Structures are given as structure tokens and as C-alpha cells.
């Protein structure tokens, strides 16, 4: 993920509160991925408008953590989703 790239959840992929298991999940075609707090925090910022750099800067401010570390973790997480076609990047 480059700083200027804009991640988007494509049609058919959405965040969902699993009220039975009391956790956030990412619903995608024939898949449900349980999200931890970090995963949910990152995906909550993905709105199809803001760039990867803006998202990680926002998270760094919000959680008072170094942006570099957040960018590294987020890139790995989002990259894995992208490979599975659960995330698009423009």
C-alpha cells in the first residue's frame, strides 16, 4: 500500500456486528472474517475517499501511536484482504 492509494471495500464486502458472538466481522462472498480491535479500527476508516496515508495519520493521532508502525501493520492487513479480492485500491 502506497500513501496516496485509496482503499475501498468493494460491493459485497461489508462490516457487520455479529450480535451472537459479540464481535465485528467482515462479510464477503461466502466468507466471514472475525475482526480484532485493530482490524475493525482500520476498516472503519476505509471510506473510499481518504488515502492510505490519511487513514494511518488519523489512526496515529486517535490512538497516540507512531504512524510508521500503524502504516506497517495496516499495510499487511489490507494487503492480505486485497489479495483475496475483499479490498480494492485506486
Amino acid at each position: 500500500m502506497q500513501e496516496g492509494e485509496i482503499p475501498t471495500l468493494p460491493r459485497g464486502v461489508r462490516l457487520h456486528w455479529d450480535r451472537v458472538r459479540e464481535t465485528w466481522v467482515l462479510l464477503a462472498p461466502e466468507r466471514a472474517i472475525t475482526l480484532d480491535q485493530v482490524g475493525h479500527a482500520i476498516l472503519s476508516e476505509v471510506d473510499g475517499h481518504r488515502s492510505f496515508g490519511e487513514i494511518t495519520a488519523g489512526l496515529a493521532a486517535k490512538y497516540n501511536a507512531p504512524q510508521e508502525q500503524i502504516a506497517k501493520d495496516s499495510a499487511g492487513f489490507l494487503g492480505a484482504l486485497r489479495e483475496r479480492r475483499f479490498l480494492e485500491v485506486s
Partner: protein
Amino acid sequence: MTTARPPIAMLAELTHRCPLSCPYCSNPIEMARQETELATQDWARVFAEAADLGVLQLHLSGGEPATRRDLETLVRAAREAGLYTNLITSGIGLTERRLDALDQAGLDHVQLSLQGTTPEMADEIGGYRGGFKRKMQVAEWIGAIGFPLTLNAVLHRRNLHQLPRAIEMAVEMGARRIEVATVQFHGWALKNRDALMPTREQAAEATRIVQEARLRLKGTLVIDYVPADYHSDYPKRCMGGWGSTGLNVTPDGQVLPCHAAQTIPHLSFDNVRDKPLSEIWYEGAAFNAYRGTDWMPEPCASCERKTVDFGGCRCQAMALAGDPAATDPVCIKSPHHVDLQARAEAHAAADGAALVYRAAPGKAPEPAE
């Protein structure tokens, strides 16, 4: 009794009616007749019960689900219940107008089956002339609306050579995923092993093609692969473990741990007409019969893989070893393994076997419009 966790997925077999008659159909030999099918409001109630139980993914299947004229209403009811809706279809019976209505109803995803990559192959296997042409039209409409698409290519000895083209077609259609599914021998397929069993060489070639395509198409197309079962050394992790992740509701409301479970004679099944889904899932006799690992005899009981594949497929153990608690004969640790491999070779070498097409449940109407 094992403490069960909530199920993630439910397969709703809305009907056993289908315009196609594929010789590997997973529907049971004894099919539910139209007049016994659950009504719209029954299904809506079951969807709500499923969501309350913890189901996230709903697979709307059949037969051909588009044969149900209330499909759009059912999708809406499922979305209102909070379920992710996946339509598993041959495409036959879908029109541009119906797809628009499904879009309006909130359908999340379409899985389109592929019987072959040419009209000649697809129409022969599906037993429905003009089916391939129609399917290609439906694929275009799906793409135009923008539904996420998975192509489900069902492969066997007669069409495995078309695998590379099937992968190309998935890319051309804009599918995000292709399921490369080698026929599993349950239901009607069990009658067609002589006609459909791949050769060992074909099975190995398919694995090679999939591995190559996965690397080449990384980030473009996800490839899920179901290898040729009889030629494997370890059994499939059937249903992710019996009664652990998924359940299946038949057109007439019976709740099964897997779609072939009715082939196990000693099991009895509850019906959504009589009991809440949650009671059936947690307390039903059929679900508890092979849940967890306590039921396992040797060699499964002491096997290090027992929570990897849960002893394989119970229905296959029934069909091939005559005992639903036996180790799946695909497993190298099964006393039936050597015999099964020999039988697989014999089936694969049976030249000229005619296809036995699946029958229709009672009267089969023409597809809508």
C-alpha cells in the same frame, strides 16, 4: 455431549426443481415435491431464526432457486434478518428484470455454475439445450449490475481438459473468484462414477493448472480448489466438521448436518415446521451423532489428524464402507483405502459409460419467462 458453537452458514435448498439435470447433482435421489416445499413465510421465519442462532452466511440454493417465483421476496427477508445472501444458480430462469429485482432486494453475491466451457459440453452435461448461451447472457447481466461473482466450474473426466478455459472465462466475466470443483461422488454422481471419474493423471494435471493460475492471477482471481477425492491420500474436512459450522435445510423443511446426510439410514431429522432451529442445532440427534471427536473409532480416535479432517465424510463412509462411523475410505489409514484406489482406477478406465441424468421431482415446469 460436545458443547457446540453457533453455525456460521446455512444452505437453504429452496426447491429441488431444476431445468437442468446434471448427472452429478447433489440433490438426493428421493426429491421433495413442489407441493411439500416450505412457503414464503416459513422460509422468512427460518431466516430470522438462523440469524438469531448466529448464522452469518445464507446460501440460497436448490435445485435451481430461480425456479421459486418468490426468490426476490426471500432475499429481502434474509437481508432484513441480517444475513449475507448468496445465490447459487445455473442462471436458467433469471431474466434481466428479475436480476434487477434481486439487486433491489439486496442480494449480496452470485455463484454461477459452469457445466462446460463450450455449448456442446455444457448443454450435454446439463441436459438442457441452449443452457450455455442463456448462462452467458445471464453472466453479462450480472456483470452489468455489478454483483460480485463467483464462477463454479464443476469438473470431471469428460470436461477436465476445459479447466484452463474455465479460468480464462472467470477473468473475462470479471469474477473475483472461481471455485474449481472436481465432482464429489454423492447423490446422483454416485450413479455416474464410470462416466465421470477423473483419471489420476487428470487429477494431477488439474492441481498443477490451479497452482500455476493462482500465482499468475494473484490479486485478480481467487481460486478455490476441490481436488479429486478418490485420488487423494487424506479425506476432505467435510462440512468443516459435522455439526460445527453449517447446516442445510431441505425444500420441505428438514434440517440436515450436510446435504447428503439422508443417505445415513439410522439418522432421523427434525423439521423447522415442528421445532425452532436453535433446538435442532444444539439438541437434534442427527447433529450430535458425529459432532466433535467422541464418536470416533480407530484409526481416527488416536490419529493426529482427527481435528484436521474429522475422519472425512460420514456419508462417504456409509456409501463406500457401509458404516457411517468408519474412517472415510479415502484416508490411507482406512482398511478400504487400497480397494478404493483400485475402484477409482477402474471407474476412470470405464470407457463409453452413458450419463445417468438426475430425475425431476414430480413435474418439472419450464423456467420462468
